[in-house]
């Protein structure tokens, strides 16, 4: 059982900053995902925690102990690599036994532990094969087996499912969640797939260009994105983001863009009249009735629902979600209404901060739950 604390961690490669001022406290036993687009510093963060990369500033501690100068083998962590990194000349059994052997576990005990891990991951019939003779999913399980055979304090996983096909990925996702529940160990999971992060994590750390954007449970990240980037990154199809102007209206605020003019309710202290961004989830648009008109550009059928792309006021594109039953013709005009109780307002810029008041109330509420 161990918590992991990054405080003020910095990593630069030459003049390039890969991770900037990272403060992150991972609780003991928690499943945390590092999520973000390619090149945002997820792997670098994980590798610093593993001891494969050295921070150029700040401290990392595991279980209250600063590990900046501790060798990877002494940190009591286990890591699953994206490429699995199985030892190609060793059998599956030897691969799984290797970390035990290097820690001086006697052979008899080692065999027992390997057998137990193999059973848990259904690898028993494969123990005498070499990694080259295994499928991707099997290799992935061996890599997991090598990590969990020794019961480390922290598990680190770097996109372990990215090489698997969609079906196997879904299956392994469930397996990992179950494994986490059973072992109760701290797990840090790197992914660029928001579905993985949303479904598996206790909390998600979203990064962009080396900066932490938000660190919160999946529901909170979805419902109260901390800034414009998070809002656009989380959710499929992604949130509609419309640039426009914010104006004061009595005690509240209004947002205008082209012919759109909606009340956005009370905002926080950061709100200022001027350029801003309005965000609305596709599900907060309802088609068929309402005071606004838009043209249907595209209808994508996913089976149980349709994703509809609308063109509004000449240049604004919106995505809406409707039931598959609703019959819409491409090119036709359709009326729509906006659920004004579920609007998000962000400041200008790529990472414009959330301006709704709701954030503070709700985040303390969710914190209380966990």
């Amino acid at each position, binding site marked *: 059982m161990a918590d992991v604390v990054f405080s003020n961690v910095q990593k630069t490669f030459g003049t390039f900053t890969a991770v900037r001022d990272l403060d992150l406290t991972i609780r003991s036993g928690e499943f945390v995902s590092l999520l973000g687009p390619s090149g945002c510093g997820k792997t670098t963060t994980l590798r610093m925690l*593993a*001891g*494969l990369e050295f921070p150029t500033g700040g401290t990392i501690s595991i279980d209250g102990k600063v590990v900046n100068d501790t*060798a*990877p*083998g*002494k940190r009591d*962590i*286990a*890591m699953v*690599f994206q*490429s699995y*990194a*199985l*030892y*190609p*000349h060793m059998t599956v059994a030897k691969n799984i036994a*290797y*970390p035990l052997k*290097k*820690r001086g576990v006697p052979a008899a005990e080692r065999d027992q532990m390997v057998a137990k891990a193999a059973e848990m991951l259904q690898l028993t019939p494969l123990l005498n094969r*070499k990694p*080259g003779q295994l499928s991707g999913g099997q290799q992935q399980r061996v890599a997991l087996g*090598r990590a969990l055979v020794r019961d480390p304090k922290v598990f680190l996983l770097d996109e372990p499912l990215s090489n698997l096909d969609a079906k196997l990925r879904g299956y392994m996702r469930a397996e990992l969640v179950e494994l986490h529940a059973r072992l109760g160990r701290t797990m840090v999971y790197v992914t660029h797939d928001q579905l993985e992060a949303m479904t598996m994590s206790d909390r998600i750390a979203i990064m962009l260009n080396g900066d932490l954007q938000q660190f919160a449970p999946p529901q909170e990240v979805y419902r109260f994105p901390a800034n414009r980037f998070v809002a656009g990154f989380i959710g499929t199809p992604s949130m509609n983001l419309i640039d426009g102007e914010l104006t004061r209206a009595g005690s509240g605020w209004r947002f205008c863009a082209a012919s759109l003019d909606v009340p956005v309710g009370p905002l926080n202290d950061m709100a200022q009249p001027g350029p801003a961004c309005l965000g609305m989830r596709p599900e907060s648009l309802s088609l068929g009735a309402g005071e606004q008109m838009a043209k249907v550009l595209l209808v994508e059928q996913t089976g149980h629902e349709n994703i509809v792309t609308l063109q509004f006021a000449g240049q604004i594109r919106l995505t809406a979600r409707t039931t598959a039953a609703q019959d819409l013709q491409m090119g036709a005009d359709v009326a729509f209404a906006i659920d004004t109780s579920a609007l998000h307002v962000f400041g200008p810029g790529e990472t414009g901060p959330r301006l709704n008041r709701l954030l503070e109330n709700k985040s303390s509420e969710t914190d209380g739950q966990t």
Partner: protein
Amino acid sequence: MSRPNTATPLERRYAMLGVILIAPTILVFCAVIVYPLFSAIYLSLFQIFTPTLQGSFVGLENYQRLFQRSEFWISLRNTLVWTIGTLTLQILLGVAMALVLHQNLWFRSLARSLILFPYFVSTVVAVLVWRWLFNDLYGILNHLMISVGLIDWPLDFLGSSPNAMISVILVGAWKYFPFVVIAVLARLQTIPEPLYEAAKIDGAGPIARFFDITLPQLREVLVVIILLRAIWDFKEFDLIFLLTGGGPLITTQTLPLLVYKEAFALNQMGMASAYAVVMMAIMLVFMVVYVLKTRNKDESR
């Protein structure tokens, strides 16, 4: 070569094309390898005077005489001592140097080109330099060893018995270890870095990482290197001939030197051919062992 009868006309045309394309190679191969091979076997059945190439058929008598001669056995032993000694040094030195050069050193690219130097230098030049270094009157090696107090009296590196063989082995190792460095370095660069990182996390120190990851990954390339170098060292001629000429007496005379002596000093072409054929037979044994070994490995995979 049995081809299935089910071949379509197109496949047969492709097969024809293959035969036409490969024919020149086969012809050249026959001219430069198969012909000399059989002519050596043929010549070994005659007693021939080299300058006139006149001789008489003697059957297997050359072979009978050869196995009875102690000179043959001494030369064979010298060949084995030389081959095993120089090859071992080449491999140890080559792998060690490759590991050093594989580290991220700022002078790595410079060192890599420098390391090839002995391999580039023509054997004649290299041997001249070494003979000068080894010289017991004015050689720098003796001078250095005396000045640091290692020896009291100049050593005769090339003219006394075990010294000559040791010197030849050392020069051979110096001359050919760059080949090992280059081949091993090329392989080292293809070993995926995550393997080392995984081993680090699994608690393996630098020495464990070498034996558990680097060495097994190098095994295949080392087998090839050892085989190639063993063949080349086994038939090495110029380096030994120029350095010691086989002496003192015949203590560094290897089989190739014996063949040369028989053919061009004693003018016994038939006998020389017999030696050459025996040499070839010995190398054939190496090759068969190698082929069997690699085949077993492929199957057990």
